[in-house]
């Protein structure tokens, strides 16, 4: 018992990143890692409610969903998907260089991730604006000329905005956290020995990315087979 506490005291004296209530750095890192995965589990359940609603209604109103889905802009969606996947690559590289203790490359790839995330949000804003112009936002001003099933077309767009909106809000939160991390990385707060926040944020960023990987086909690609894409 005495050996344990003296080891902890020894570590604490030398490692400024070790919080007082942990015995050693491994315990601290494992805790952060489990905590992040548990958090991602809660995120999975969070998005899960909207996915459930989507599956139920698509099962019930397939025709309306196909018609509504074909109103989305596949090209823009595909560009955005590419942008987001690239941002995951830059994020993975950022984690990699953090583990090597390469400060400049870490900052560079974090900024790249930030820029790609920003492009994604900008394109998303453009799409929302487009929907606004075409009266495709659910509510009083919703219009759908020539729709066979207007009310359920509107339901599709409710899900479209609910799901992409929740996703975008996660992107915005990620954007804010990235700004802080870039600042901290620039100040040299991370090292090859301790870069836990970078690694944990990487998990979050990849999760948000994966959610989009599911959203893109569900919202844009339901019935594009054999149709001209543009």
């Amino acid at each position: 018992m005495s050996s344990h506490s003296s080891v902890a005291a020894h570590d604490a004296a030398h490692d400024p990143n070790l919080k007082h209530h942990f015995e050693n750095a491994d315990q601290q890192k494992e805790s952060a890692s489990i905590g992040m995965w548990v958090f991602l589990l809660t995120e999975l359940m969070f998005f899960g409610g909207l996915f459930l609603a989507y599956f139920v209604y698509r099962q019930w109103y397939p025709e309306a969903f196909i018609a509504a889905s074909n109103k989305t802009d596949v090209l823009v969606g595909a560009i955005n998907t590419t942008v987001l996947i690239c941002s995951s690559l830059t994020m993975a590289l950022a984690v990699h260089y953090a583990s090597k203790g390469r400060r400049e490359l870490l900052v560079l790839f974090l900024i790249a991730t930030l820029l790609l995330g920003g492009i994604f949000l900008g394109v998303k804003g453009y799409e929302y604006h487009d929907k606004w112009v075409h009266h495709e936002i659910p509510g009083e001003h919703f219009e759908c000329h020539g729709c066979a099933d207007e009310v359920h077309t509107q339901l599709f767009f409710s899900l479209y905005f609910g799901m992409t909106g929740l996703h975008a809000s996660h992107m915005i939160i990620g954007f804010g956290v990235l700004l802080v991390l870039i600042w901290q990385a620039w100040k040299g707060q991370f090292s090859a020995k301790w870069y836990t926040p970078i690694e944990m944020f990487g998990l979050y960023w990849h999760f948000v990315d994966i959610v989009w990987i599911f959203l893109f086909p569900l919202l844009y690609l339901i019935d594009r087979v054999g149709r001209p894409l543009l």
Partner: protein
Amino acid sequence: MIAASAPVKEQKNYLNAENGLKSWLLTQDHKRIAILYLLSVTVFFIVGGLFAALIRLELTTPAGDMLDSNTYNKVFTAHGVVMIFFFLIPSIPAILGNFLLPLMIGAKDLAFPRINLLSWYVYMLGGTLGVIVLATGGVDTGWTFYTPLSTTYSNGYVVLTAMAAFVAGFSSILTGLNFIVTVHRMRAPGLTWFRLPLFVWAHYATSVIMILGTPVIAVTLFMLMLERGLHIGFFDPAYGGDPVLFQHLFWFYSHPAVYIMILPSMGVISEVMSTFCTKKPFGYTFIAFSSVAIAVFGFLVWGHHLFVSSQSAYAGMVFSILTYIVAIPSAIKVFNWAATMYKGQVRLTAPMLYAIGFIGLFTVGGLTGLFLAAMGLDVHVTDTYFVVAHFHYVMVGGAIMGYMAGIHYWWPKITGRMYNQLWAKVSCCLVFIGFNLTFFPQFVLGYMGMPRRYHVYPAEFQVLNVLSSGGAAILGLGYLIPAVYFLWSLKYGAPAGDNPWGATTLEWQTSSPPPTTNFEVTPVVTTEVYDYTNAEVPHIV
């Protein structure tokens, strides 16, 4: 032993380590955060209780002579929202769990102290939103927020109320996350999973429900707010949606939430039973795994809230059977507690009285739950006072009795002071009598067909309603007396000493109140849990 261990000079502990408001509001000590929760949760308990008093006052006469129907709707909604989201869900986990989990596993703190403090601020933000709703006119949908009443027809502050519950939910997610990581990674050397106190097992199971269930109510309320606030509809048929989907999503969280409220109480009862029977709990592993089983099966029974909501008869049958199954682990606990008392050295202290009361009342609540799981009978009593009585037996008779048992059991550890046992026993008896008088007549009323959520009723129901209201007054008194003797004990109570009850778990091996770092040296566990072979059994007056 009690007087002998009182030091001449007061030693440093978590309460006097630092002074000033700032040291409390910025604390990262799990014990101080528990105290912050204790104070704020108590305030919400009083608020929720006042609304209950209004309900019972109105129902003493058949006519609606005190509150009009609209106000009555707002009053019972406020009672439900405040009691569930701001009292019952955080009560035991955020107060006792927060205080005890690190102590019980020999850790210095929870894994994420800053997140722990954040959870309290998030809770207070949710609470503030709730108070704004109450102050500006309330909401009339019931705590269930059923659509399309909530999204289209209600004239109250639905979005703000939903936001309050949404925000409070994140505080419970953060608490659950912290507990899970703490139990996995922060246990003292030698403290294996099957040496964990049953309180820890119960909180682990509760945390699993918190992290898996709470996000679902969050997204459901998110959709509700979008529909009500922005007309981005999901549930109202006018927007092409289906209101029953809301009920599915709502109960997918809100039924497991019942277990968020009762499982921690069960953990408390296991501890209290063992200590005051001076005996290892009968069937330790069964009690431990029954907590996990409740967490798992609790997620599969939500459909029993939809027996009359156009759910198919086959789905109903499956949910009915699953509901019977989830009663099994609860029954295992009840039988094991009873078997623990058998041939134990039973000491009838105040916490023990509460624990015994819990077993009786929870059993009634659980068994009437089986009545409601039967589809045919449920159709007869749906939305009647039978349901109201059933869940109050579980929530008040179960969860709050467990909470009171826990507060009485760990008060000496938390404050370092003993309270008056006689007064505590008297108030426990008052709670027990008042509770039964309040809610037993409601079973009868419900079976006779009195619907819930109305402020008027036929004259023949008056006698039972007056009994119920009279019982509520006694119950209220029973909850008021502890406030007096607990406050009294802070100044005049005898110093408790480290282990006034002769308990065996780790939290009793440090001083009372514990030092900021919990233990002078990290304890190493070499014996099985609940080992009474060398325990001193003090006599408690």
